[in-house]
């Protein structure tokens, strides 16, 4: 279905946007890490001089069964990357995705009988999964569509479940915009329109807890826990409910600001009031002139 069919009467398209290819870099870095580590691991196991020494060292401990320590290195470094990325993005699901990927890889290797070519299978598997990740993330990015018209902004997105949000300019109260380092370099940024109903706002919660525990050897025991949490409202929305990573950032921001400004009712009312005042003054003047004429006659 074309965009034109979505438009209302007298509505015209101002801009049609999609997120910039690098705007999902934080998600892509999860897949890129796998590719990078796959390349390094492949080089390390197959071509590096360091590995030969390490392998002979391993053979002293594990005999001919070198696969176990190799798998250990493969798991540990990947999971370490997963922990770092989880901490950076505050999303532990990244760690569990990595665990799942590694578990599946290990099972496939043993079931498929590729354990004797582990030096090829393990790096190639990681690189393939990484490439698949990059492809899926880009597919997800391409599912986003932002349509800016003279009446409203239409947000569309979602890979399987298609989501859509329509936002009229007169309902926008605030506009939050941000630009990361990559955004500054490639000139893209995120614009979050916040509505009167609070759509576009999220919450940051921080929690602190303190516990005291102590047991005396025989008769006395004590345990207590104290806690508290704080919430801060912050502009946040799903990528398909905000103008995520739009390019060119400044131009789009200016367009949205001017469209919001054009739809604000107060200046319009003010203009109407001024006209009414002028009309009143004219009428009064007319009446005055009429009275003068009557007096003279």
């Amino acid at each position, binding site marked *: 279905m074309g965009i034109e069919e979505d438009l209302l009467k007298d509505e015209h398209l101002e801009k049609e946007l999609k997120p910039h290819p690098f705007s999902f870099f934080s998600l892509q870095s999860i897949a890129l890490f796998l590719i990078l580590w796959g*390349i*390094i691991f492949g*080089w390390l196991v197959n*071509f*590096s001089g360091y590995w030969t020494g390490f392998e002979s060292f391993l053979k002293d401990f594990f005999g001919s069964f070198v696969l176990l320590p190799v798998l250990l290195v493969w798991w540990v470094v990947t999971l370490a990357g997963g922990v770092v990325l989880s901490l950076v993005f505050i999303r532990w699901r990244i760690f569990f995705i990595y665990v799942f990927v590694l578990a599946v890889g290990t099972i496939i290797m043993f079931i498929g009988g590729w354990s004797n070519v582990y030096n090829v299978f393990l790096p190639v598997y990681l690189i393939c999964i990484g490439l698949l990740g990059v492809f899926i993330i880009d597919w997800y990015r391409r599912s986003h569509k932002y349509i800016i018209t003279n009446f409203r902004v239409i947000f569309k997105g979602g890979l399987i479940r298609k989501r859509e949000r329509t936002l009229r300019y007169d309902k926008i109260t605030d506009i939050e915009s941000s630009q990361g380092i990559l955004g*500054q*370099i*490639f*000139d893209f940024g995120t614009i979050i329109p916040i509505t009167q109903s609070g759509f576009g706002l999220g919450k940051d919660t921080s929690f602190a807890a303190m516990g005291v525990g102590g047991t005396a050897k025989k008769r006395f025991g004590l345990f207590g826990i104290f806690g508290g949490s704080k919430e801060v409202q912050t502009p946040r929305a799903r990528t398909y409910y905000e103008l995520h990573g739009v390019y060119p950032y400044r131009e789009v921001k200016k367009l949205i600001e001017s469209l919001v400004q054009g739809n604000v009712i107060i200046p319009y009312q003010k203009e109407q009031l001024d006209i009414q005042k002028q009309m009143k003054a004219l009428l009064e003047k007319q009446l005055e002139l009429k009275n003068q004429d009557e007096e003279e006659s």
Partner: protein
Amino acid sequence: MCWEIVDRFLFAPLAPILGVILFWSIQLLLIESMKHLLRKIWSKHQSLCRFTNLVGLFFQAFSHAIGYTITKCGVSHFYISVDESKVEPKRQAKGAVEWITKVFLFIGPFFVPALLIFILLLLGYNAAFKVPAGSFYTFSDGLIVFGNSLSYFSQKFIELLVNLDFLNPFHVFFLLFLIFIGLGIRPLYIGREEKRKINIIYDLQNIKNLLSERPVYIISVFAFFYILYYICLFFNLNWYINLMLFFGWLSIISIVAIIIAHLIILLVKSTDQIRPSWNLLPYVTLFISYGLSRLVFYSLSFRYSISIVIMLISTFIITLFLKRVKTNKLKTKASIKKLKDLEVEEIGNRRGSSKR
């Protein structure tokens, strides 16, 4: 005899200082040339220019912050964007402390990025650093010792670079880091748009102001160098020459990094002049020629260096060839050039007749 004493006590300490100034001047000129090149590709590669500016601003802010940290002023505000950087101290610096922070701001960016490479080399390739056993006694001695050590370092550093194995991820990271340093050795101030024209004159003006506003500090710095030299002279220590060599090594690293960055920018600039679908070919040649050379010279001991040389030469030839044949600029064709000359002549004639 009298001249020998004057040379030994007055002129000899100046020799390595002059050496450092010479290399630093070369660095300044190369930075200026890179700025010129970047300005030329700015309209087509704004993202690349913004990136180089960001890296430059980062190193500038980093140097400034180091200055505040060393002088115990502390850093209260640290801000970097593609357009500007800002570092504010917790405590306002005054007098000598202020001067030292300014030294870090104006001179730091020339040396701090190279310091990172220096640390890497020190950890992984310390054979490149040869230091003299003791002090030197005359001006000419000083120049020879300084020059010898730097030429040895340059030779080893180039040797390291031409023997990089691009199939080794760590070597690739090292090269990328070197390019990163080369691109960002000095901010260009052409982030979103060219706001400030910062050039060699601006840099020199700043340094001149720095030197002239507090002559006492400059005299103190020279006094420190002279005292250090005398101590080294009497106890036959190499501390003074090593201190100067340190700055010399940093300059050499910076110069090499900037030259490599130059090659990258030149390649980008040249491919801009090639027709769109063909302009990827030089980049493809870069990778394919290296890969093929590595396969062909697999068993040779000098496979790394020969592969790099072949890669560079083949990319250069292909780029040059494409610039001639598949150019998107019409002026290289002789016949069109002539036509253009005729047009210019015709316009000139018209102007001449209208004047009459």
